[in-house]
């Protein structure tokens, strides 16, 4: 295989990963819609994050277990800090969105925080030399695509929102902007991990630790202490399984987002995975019968969806060329020099050609995986069937499409990089 052919395959794998990330991050909303009892949003977030954590430590524990994670931590100790930081950023941003929606409504809040993709593009260019050397074509396609997606996403948010009157505009805008700044900045750690040669599964491990610790702290504070939080979790028992399932689906989406950040960079990876809004909307309208409004809102949904899909297509066409790849290698060289990493090793990791990670399964790995599965199994026994009409046909179609993307993106990643 020639170098150019390999680069093309990596580009395709990264782009497909971004598209698959959108499908799975969007599908993660579906199980939470089955929760019809009133729960504090922060409790919903906490249980989903616990699901993400359990998802990481169930089956992947046997693929990339404690030995491989320890090995990466020994080799790249500094990246543990960044991964935990990214998890903390995600949790605080996610909590802020709850306040933004409360104070200004989804239709105003959404475009404010979804501008995170533009911030991500800026960080990518500034810190990791993304889009440099790509010329006007790459800049035009990526910025034009991201702008089209932002506009489409805004139209979708306006069409779907059932807003109450804004309560506190200043606070709501501040919360939404802060959430966007945090989500856009969260991708600095993502990209930093990959220009230093870390593997996505190891990064996600430390990320989920930062996420679960921050979210537990926030939930304890916001519900008024350990006692009230435990009471709230106990009340949530019949629906735990749906929220945990949402977390399990989310972690698949996030893993694809990691591969997209690795192989096409954050400037393309973030906007591509922001198509999750489209998938979330499809689940809401087709499966759960939301948006029963008139023709005007249907027209808006169609226009917004087309703008979003068109923007994503532009970005998919803007794959990094040879000159930009050279700039990426320079960014990786900076990391190697600063942190004393073996440059040849980093470059091999960056193109998915490194030595395969340690694949030993210790007793500890089996115990962790069985423990995670036991918690998930227990939540099933506690579940009560939701009283909600679900359109089975469209659900099967969306599940089928998501699985097809999983197989296509996952299969290509495996063939080209062995999952590195």
């Amino acid at each position: 295989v020639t170098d150019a052919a390999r680069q093309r395959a990596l580009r395709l794998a990264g782009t497909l990963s971004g598209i698959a990330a959108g499908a799975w991050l969007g599908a993660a909303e579906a199980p939470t819609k089955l929760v019809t009892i009133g729960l504090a949003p922060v409790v919903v977030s906490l249980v989903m994050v616990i699901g993400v954590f359990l998802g990481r430590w169930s089956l992947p524990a046997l693929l990339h277990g404690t030995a491989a994670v320890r090995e990466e931590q020994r080799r790249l100790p500094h990246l543990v800090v960044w991964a935990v930081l990214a998890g903390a950023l995600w949790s605080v941003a996610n909590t802020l969105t709850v306040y933004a929606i409360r104070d200004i409504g989804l239709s105003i809040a959404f475009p404010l925080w979804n501008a995170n993709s533009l911030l991500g593009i800026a960080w990518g260019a500034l810190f990791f030399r993304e889009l440099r050397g790509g010329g006007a074509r790459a800049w035009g396609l990526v910025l034009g695509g991201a702008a089209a997606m932002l506009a489409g996403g805004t139209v979708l948010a306006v069409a779907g929102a059932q807003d109450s009157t804004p309560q506190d505009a200043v606070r709501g805008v501040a919360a939404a902007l802060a959430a966007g700044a945090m989500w856009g900045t969260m991708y600095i750690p993502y990209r930093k991990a990959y220009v230093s040669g870390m593997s996505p599964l190891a990064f996600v491990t430390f990320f989920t630790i930062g996420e679960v610790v921050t979210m537990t702290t926030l939930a304890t504070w916001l519900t008024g202490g350990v006692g009230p939080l435990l009471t709230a979790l106990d009340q949530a028992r019949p629906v735990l399984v749906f929220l945990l399932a949402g977390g399990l689906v989310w972690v698949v989406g996030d893993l694809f987002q990691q591969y997209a950040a690795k192989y096409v960079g954050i400037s393309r990876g973030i906007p591509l995975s922001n198509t999750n809004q489209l998938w979330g909307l499809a689940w809401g309208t087709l499966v759960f019968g939301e948006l029963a409004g008139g023709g005007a809102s249907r027209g808006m949904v169609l226009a917004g969806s087309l703008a979003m899909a068109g923007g994503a297509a532009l970005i998919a066409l803007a794959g990094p060329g040879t000159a930009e790849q050279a700039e990426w290698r320079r960014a990786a060289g900076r990391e190697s020099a600063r942190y004393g990493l073996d440059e040849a090793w980093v470059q091999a990791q960056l193109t998915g050609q490194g030595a395969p990670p340690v694949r030993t399964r210790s007793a500890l790995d089996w115990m962790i995986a069985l423990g995670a599965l036991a918690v998930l199994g227990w939540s099933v026994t506690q579940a009560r069937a939701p009283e909600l009409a679900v359109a089975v046909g469209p659900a099967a179609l969306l599940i089928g499409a998501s699985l097809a993307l999983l197989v296509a993106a996952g299969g290509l990643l495996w063939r080209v990089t062995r999952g590195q």
Partner: protein
Amino acid sequence: MPPERDWRRAALTDPQLWVPVLVLLGGLAVLVWVHG
């Protein structure tokens, strides 16, 4: 092969650390404020 340089010192002078840290602190401050 472990990194040869002291990564803590390298990290402390890395702007790619301080940008996310400051954004996190700023976001936490906004959260405290909006929570009231």
